[in-house]
């Protein structure tokens, strides 16, 4: 380990809560909400990789790779949904999608 594990945890927590603040602040814009979720998932990956380096265990890296696969699936589906919603209403403002009808 190059630095104590606690400092990496602090860095990951900082990134995670910056992403959370961005998600709360940009709740009217779908694209920026997705970007904030990316930041949060990246911080979680940092925790897994740091744990893998701390205990010399490969499982943390596996979870980081699985999170990456999950993120790519999530982003492709979410952006396809953004394109679909934009085709319906010509906006990505979440306040416009509030009627819940088929």
């Amino acid at each position: 380990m190059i630095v104590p594990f606690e400092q990496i945890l602090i860095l990951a927590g900082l990134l995670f809560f910056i992403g959370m603040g961005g998600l709360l602040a940009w709740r009217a814009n779908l694209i920026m909400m997705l970007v904030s979720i990316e930041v949060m998932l990246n911080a979680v990956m940092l925790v897994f990789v740091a744990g893998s380096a701390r205990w010399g265990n490969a499982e943390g890296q596996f979870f980081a790779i699985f999170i990456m696969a999950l993120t790519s699936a999530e982003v492709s589906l979410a952006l396809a949904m953004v394109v679909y919603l934009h085709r319906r209403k010509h906006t990505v403002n979440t306040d416009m999608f509030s009627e819940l009808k088929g």
Partner: protein
Amino acid sequence: MIEQAIFYILAAVAVIGTILAITEKHPVHAIMYLVTSLFSMAVIFFLLMAPLVAAFEVILYAGAIMVLFLFVIMMLDLGHPEQGMSPGWQTWWPALLLSTISIVSLVVVIISHRAVMAAPAAALSIREVARHLFQEHGLAVELVSLQLLFALVGALYLGKQPTGKDAK
């Protein structure tokens, strides 16, 4: 120790890049700041003895996913910050307050434990990681491939243009 200094510099770059990405009004500029932050995160992963995750971070995150975001922003013509989509001070302060409370509580909890430099664990080579992954976690790999297939089918279905009798 030079690796430690590099880690602190990269951590600062990652945090500042993320803050700029979140507060930037223009979506394309925000994506660019985020790419900077992700590159420094990739080097941090490399310093933490995970070269495979570092390479995937550059290829998948900074490469594929961010390009996907850029394509959608360009395709839907969303790069107009003057349209009033960005949050004002009214929406920023609750988010800022909640994140600050969470960050401060986390830092207090972590600092109350005494930080000790752990003994350096043995570095895992990529060959070893891959052998563990495919021999002991083969089911998880299959599940992830299924998940990617479902995402592909779902994206194709959602992105289909309404044609013929489907069109209203």
